[in-house]
C-alpha cells in the first residue's frame, strides 16, 4: 500500500468535512446548554427532522428549497417544543430534563416513521455542486467542499455575532451569570428562547446538509447523538471555541483512526473522551473561566 501526499490530503479533507457536519450540530446543542443549562437530548431528532423536511421540500422545489426552508421549519418545531415543554421544564432539575428529552427522541422518531414511512429517503446533490474539483493535487467531491465551506461560514458568522455584537454580549453575559444578566435588564428568558430557536435551526441545517451525503432514515438522529455529545464534552460545554475544537478533534481522530488503526477506530474516540474527562473534566475550552 502506497500512501502518497494526495492520499493524506484526501483524508484531511474527509476529516474536515466530518468535523464541519458535527460542528453544525454541536454548536446549537452546546450554546443551548451553556446558556440555559438545559440538556436537550432530542437535538439529534431535530437533525433527523431537518433531513426529512429537506427531503420533502427538495422533492417539490429542488435542493435549495430544502436547504433554506428546512432550518426554518425545524426552528418552527423548536418554537413548539419550547412553548409546549421546555419552558415548563426550565426549573426542574437536569434529571427530569434528560428524561423528558430522552423520551422526546422516541416520540419524534416514531412521528417521522408515521409521516414518512420506514423506507429511507434520499436527496440528490444539486447540479451546481455535483461532480469533483481538483484541489491541492486531489480530486474531491464538490459537495463535500461545500459542507466544509458552509461550516467555516457559519463559524465565522457565529464568532462575529457572539464576539462583536450587542446580542452576542448579552448571550455571553447570560452564559456567564444569568441572574446578574437579568439584574442588568437583559430579558434572559427571551434570549433563551431566541438561542433555542437558532440552535434548532442549525440542527435542521445540519440535517439538510447531511441528507445528500447519507441516507435519510428515522434513526439517523439517534446515530448522530453520541458523536455530538462527545464533541461538546471534549470541547467544553457552552463554548463556541469548544464546539469547533471538539468537532475538529472528533473528525480527525475518527478519520485518521480509521486509516492508521482500523481495529481501534471505534474505540479511539471514546478513549479520548475518557482521557479528557479524567484530565480536564470541564472540557478543553470551557465557556466560563
Amino acid at each position: 500500500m502506497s500512501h502518497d501526499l494526495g492520499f493524506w490530503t484526501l483524508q484531511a479533507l474527509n476529516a474536515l468535512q466530518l468535523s464541519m457536519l458535527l460542528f453544525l450540530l454541536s454548536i446549537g446543542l452546546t450554546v443551548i446548554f451553556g446558556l440555559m443549562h438545559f440538556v436537550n437530548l432530542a437535538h439529534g431528532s431535530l437533525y433527523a427532522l431537518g433531513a426529512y423536511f429537506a427531503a420533502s421540500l427538495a422533492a417539490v422545489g429542488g435542493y435549495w428549497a430544502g436547504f433554506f426552508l428546512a432550518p426554518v421549519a425545524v426552528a418552527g418545531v423548536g418554537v413548539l417544543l419550547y412553548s409546549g415543554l421546555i419552558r415548563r421544564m426550565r426549573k426542574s432539575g437536569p434529571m427530569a430534563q434528560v428524561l423528558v428529552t430522552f423520551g422526546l427522541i422516541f416520540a419524534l422518531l416514531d412521528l417521522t416513521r408515521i409521516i414518512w414511512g420506514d423506507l429511507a429517503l434520499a436527496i440528490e446533490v444539486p447540479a451546481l455542486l455535483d461532480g469533483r474539483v481538483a484541489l491541492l493535487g486531489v480530486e474531491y467531491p464538490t459537495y463535500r467542499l461545500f459542507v466544509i465551506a458552509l461550516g467555516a461560514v457559519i463559524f465565522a458568522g457565529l464568532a462575529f455575532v457572539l464576539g462583536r455584537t450587542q446580542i452576542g454580549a448579552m448571550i455571553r453575559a447570560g452564559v456567564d451569570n444569568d441572574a446578574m444578566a437579568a439584574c442588568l435588564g437583559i430579558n434572559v428568558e427571551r434570549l433563551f428562547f431566541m438561542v433555542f430557536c437558532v440552535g434548532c435551526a442549525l440542527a435542521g441545517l445540519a440535517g439538510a446538509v447531511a441528507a445528500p451525503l447519507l441516507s435519510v432514515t428515522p434513526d439517523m438522529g439517534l446515530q448522530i447523538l453520541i458523536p455530538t455529545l462527545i464533541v461538546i464534552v471534549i470541547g467544553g460545554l457552552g463554548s463556541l471555541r469548544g464546539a469547533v475544537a471538539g468537532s475538529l478533534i472528533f473528525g480527525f481522530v475518527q478519520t485518521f483512526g480509521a486509516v492508521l488503526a482500523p481495529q481501534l477506530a471505534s474505540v479511539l474516540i471514546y478513549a479520548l473522551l475518557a482521557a479528557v474527562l479524567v484530565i480536564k473534566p470541564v472540557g478543553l475550552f470551557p465557556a466560563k473561566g
Partner: protein
Amino acid sequence: MKRAILAALGLATGLAVPATAQDIKVGLLLPFSGVYAALGNDIEAGFATALEQFGAETETTFEIIREDTEVKPPVALGKAKKLILQDKVDVMAGIVSSGVLGAVRDMVHGAGVPLIVANAGNDEATGAACSPYITRMSFSNGQVNRPMGQWMYDQGIRKVYTLAPDYAAGRQMIDGFVQTFTAAGGEIVGQEFTPFQKTQDFGPYMAQAKSSGAEAVFVFYAGGEAISFVKQYDSFGLKADLPLYGSGFLTSPLYVNAEGPAAEGVITALHYVPTIDSPANATFVEAFKAKTGRIPSEFAVHGYDAGRALIEAVKAGATDRESLANALRQVRFDGPRGALSIDPATNNIVQPIYVYETVAGEGGLTQKVLAQLPAEADPANGCEMAAPVSN
C-alpha cells in the same frame, strides 16, 4: 425406531380424519417498529400473498397472530414465549435479525415448535446451532456470497479490496466471498470492517481502497449504510476505475431508488431479484404489486416462500407441531427464485444465486440479471441432526 412409530401413528391419525377442515395457528414474529420495520412489512405482505394465492390448495385454514419483535432480542423472546405458551401456535414464521434468532433459538428448540426463518442469515443458525425445528427459507450469509468469488475471478478480476460493517453478518458475508475468491486464485489486497452503525463517513475507507492497488471492491452493506456507501462511492468518482461489486443487499430494490444514479453499474449477487424471467416470478411480482403497490424485494420473497412452504407442509399431511417440523424439512417447490429445496443436513434452503447489475430502466432503476449460478448446499458447519422422517 420410537420416532418412526410415533410418526407412523401421527400419520395414521392424520389419515383417519382426512375430511375435517382444521385450523393451524401461525405466529408471525417480525419487526414492525425499529430499524428493520420496512423489512418486517415486506415479509408480512409476502406471507399474506402466498396464503391468498395457495391457500385454496388445502382445506386447512390459517389463523395468523402477529407480534412485533422491535428488533430487540429480549422483547422478541418474550413475544415468542407468549406465542408458544399462551396462544399455543402450531408454527412460527418470521425473524429478521440474527440477534433475535439467537435469542429465541433455545426456546423454540426446547418447546418443539417449528419455526420458519424468513430472513435472519446467520450461518450458525443452520450450522452449529441448528435445530430440527428451525427451517430457513431465506438465505445464509455465506451462501449468497460464496458463488461470487469464482464468478468474479472468471471475469478476469485478480485483486480485490473488501469492506463490510463490523458485526457477525458483515464478517460472514465477506468470508463467504473471500474463501472462494482466494481458492480460485484471486488475491485480497486489503480488508476493512467499519464500526457497525457508527460510520457516517466512508470517505476514509474509500481512499484506502483506492490506494490499495485493487482492481475491484467487494462490499456488504445494508439499509441506511448501503445508501450512504453507494452514494459516497459514486461522489468520489471511484466507480469508473474501481468497479463496485458486492452482496446484493447493497442495491436491494427496497432502497435502490434512494441511492439513485449512484447505484448504476454496481454488480452484486443475491438469491432473488424482481426481474428474474420466469412464470412463477411474474405471478408473484404481479400479486405483490397489486397488494402493496411496490416491487417485491428479496425480503418479500422470503415471506412469500415461507407461506408457501407452510402450505406445502400441510398438503403433505402435517397437522401439529411435530409433524409440521418434520414436513417443513422436506419441502421442495419451484418458486419465484427458481427450484428450492431444504438441505436435510442443516435445514437451510438450497437455491440458485443471481448475479445482477443495477441499470437505469423505465421508471427508475432496475436489475439486469447477468448470470444464474447453480444452487449449492452449505457445508454442515458443525450441524448434527437426525434426518427427517420421510412422509
